[in-house]
């Protein structure tokens, strides 16, 4: 095994665009679950709506890039309102069922042939990336050092993705230290009590659902720009549950949690992939074939998630007293 390349690959994951995508979506989920107590099992749908909204706006509506991004965000807001208005009056578990169903409905809807001239059907959409790449301020060349060596377009998507992470983190920090954030935490603990103190609980929950959804939608757009395509199969329930893993790993009611959680998650994913792959190659794990390596690491992730929830439910950064499981 080539340890240097394994370590380089793993370190590269620290600031990969995909890591930033997961940070954004997990920050959104932190708003939903960690701060407000909303059980959202459809975070993939919020990301997908943002990604599709942006791509369809560029390809079909011929909007310029920033117009398309705004359109994608507006689409997420509408999606959140459609989900939230009928369900947020109900108990938390109903929202969980509705969100997971809605995310599957959206994905199948995007896959159908009926609308494939707009949605691209099962092959998805591509060729919406021109304007994004034309905005790249970095001249052609190779930048960085060691594991962090990038071509200009790789650098550009990382700069965009992580700048958005920074903006989102500051934005959430401002929100959560404020009395507004306090009302959300109150709702997480007991919404009737908060209602009895004269707060419009429904409006706060709707605001939280929209904000967390928009963050996921922006994540979905970064994802699309980094891969230069939008495909329905990217937004299955796997995406949602990996976001949950990231969130619980870092700490649900924190802002640093999703950021560091996502970094650790992807570094571990890459390390297990390379190490198990390497062991299979040199014949130390004769019962595994190379194609099984990709599956076995998800098995390990499932195990890690279980151990985490049992032994450290507050995550790495969470305050043990503040966030026990109460969902």
């Amino acid at each position: 095994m080539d340890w240097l390349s394994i370590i380089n690959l793993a370190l590269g994951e620290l600031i990969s665009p995909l890591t930033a995508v997961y940070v954004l979506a997990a920050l959104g989920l932190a708003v939903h679950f960690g701060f407000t107590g909303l059980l959202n099992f459809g975070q993939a749908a919020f990301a997908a709506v943002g990604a599709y909204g942006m791509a369809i706006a560029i390809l079909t509506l011929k909007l310029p890039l920033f117009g398309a991004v705004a359109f994608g965000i507006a689409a997420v807001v509408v999606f959140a309102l459609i989900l939230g208005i009928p369900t947020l009056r109900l108990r938390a578990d109903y929202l969980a069922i509705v969100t997971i169903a809605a995310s599957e409905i959206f994905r199948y809807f995007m896959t159908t042939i009926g609308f494939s001239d707009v949605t691209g059907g099962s092959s998805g959409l591509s060729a919406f990336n021109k304007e994004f790449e034309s905005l790249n301020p970095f001249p052609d060349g190779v930048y960085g050092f060691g594991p962090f060596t990038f071509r200009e377009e790789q650098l550009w998507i990382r700069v965009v993705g992580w700048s958005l992470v920074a903006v989102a983190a500051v934005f959430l920090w401002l929100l959560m230290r404020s009395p507004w954030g306090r009302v959300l935490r109150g709702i997480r603990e007991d919404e009737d009590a908060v209602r009895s103190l004269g707060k419009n609980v429904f409006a706060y929950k709707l605001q939280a659902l929209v904000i967390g959804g928009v963050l996921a939608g922006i994540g979905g757009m970064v994802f699309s720009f980094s891969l230069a395509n939008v495909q329905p199969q990217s937004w299955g329930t796997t995406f949602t549950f990996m976001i949950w893993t990231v969130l619980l790993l870092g700490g649900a009611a924190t802002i640093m949690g999703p950021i560091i959680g996502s970094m650790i998650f992807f570094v571990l994913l890459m390390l297990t992939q390379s190490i198990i792959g390497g062991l299979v190659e040199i014949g130390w794990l004769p019962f595994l074939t190379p194609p099984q390596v990709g599956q076995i690491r998800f098995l390990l992730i499932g195990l890690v998630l279980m151990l985490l929830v049992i032994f450290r439910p507050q995550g790495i950064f969470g305050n043990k007293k503040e966030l026990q499981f109460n969902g």
Partner: protein
Amino acid sequence: MANEIAVGAAAPGCKKVDPILVADNVTRQFGGLTAVNVEHLEIPRGQITALIGPNGAGKTTLFNLLTGFDKPNTGTWTFEGKNLAGISSYKVARRGMVRTFQLTKALSLLTVIENMRLGAKDQPGESFWRSLIKPLWSGYEAKITEKADELLKRFKLDAKREDYAAALSGGQRKLLEMARALMSDPKLVMLDEPMAGVNPALTQSLLEHIKGLKANGTTVLFVEHDMHMVRHISDWVIVMAEGKVVAEGPPAQVMKDQAVIDAYLGAHADTDLGLVEIKSLKAGN
């Protein structure tokens, strides 16, 4: 005493000299069971009113209806002359009618002081856009924190200021919930069993707090099973049984009322049931 509060003689549903809350024809059915069926009820302003009755009499359901936490089948009610029927619970609280719960709802994973701050009303930082800019709300925050500290001191919770509410004892949580309700300067406080689970040492201070509320001009309505407390601090007592108001009046008078004794002890309280059975057996034979 009765003359100061009620117009005319004390009777179920009687008119009050200065009512703060007036309810008419409020009914609530759960399937075939009529939990609440109140024809007319007035709560006197500036007094401490106790709402008593056996388990299942509909006291808490009436609380829920009046505060918008449950919807009645029929009925209207006004608070300070303004209609309150069909108004959502958070708006009821904003109008100055704040309640506590029978099963205490302290926000466990917020600190005691954060619980208190949450009780304040009109905090501009609770609106989304303004919350982002601290100078817009930090001044008001300091003001409500000062008020919260005062209340915590009064309720002897100041030592627990930075603790999570989850770390408080059951009785302390009751105190916290009550103190939190007072943060918004309510006109009417509705306490659902404030004494349940509170140890006797705390009871005395809780009674003092409730009397203190009256001294500050707040109207108090509370549900309680502890007759000692009812007799001690209430100015007026309303008795419910099977969803209806069966008696009301000053405490000394109500305690002697036959309807109350029937409701609490059963209609055959002074009949020897064994004797009844033997007699009827003989008669039947």
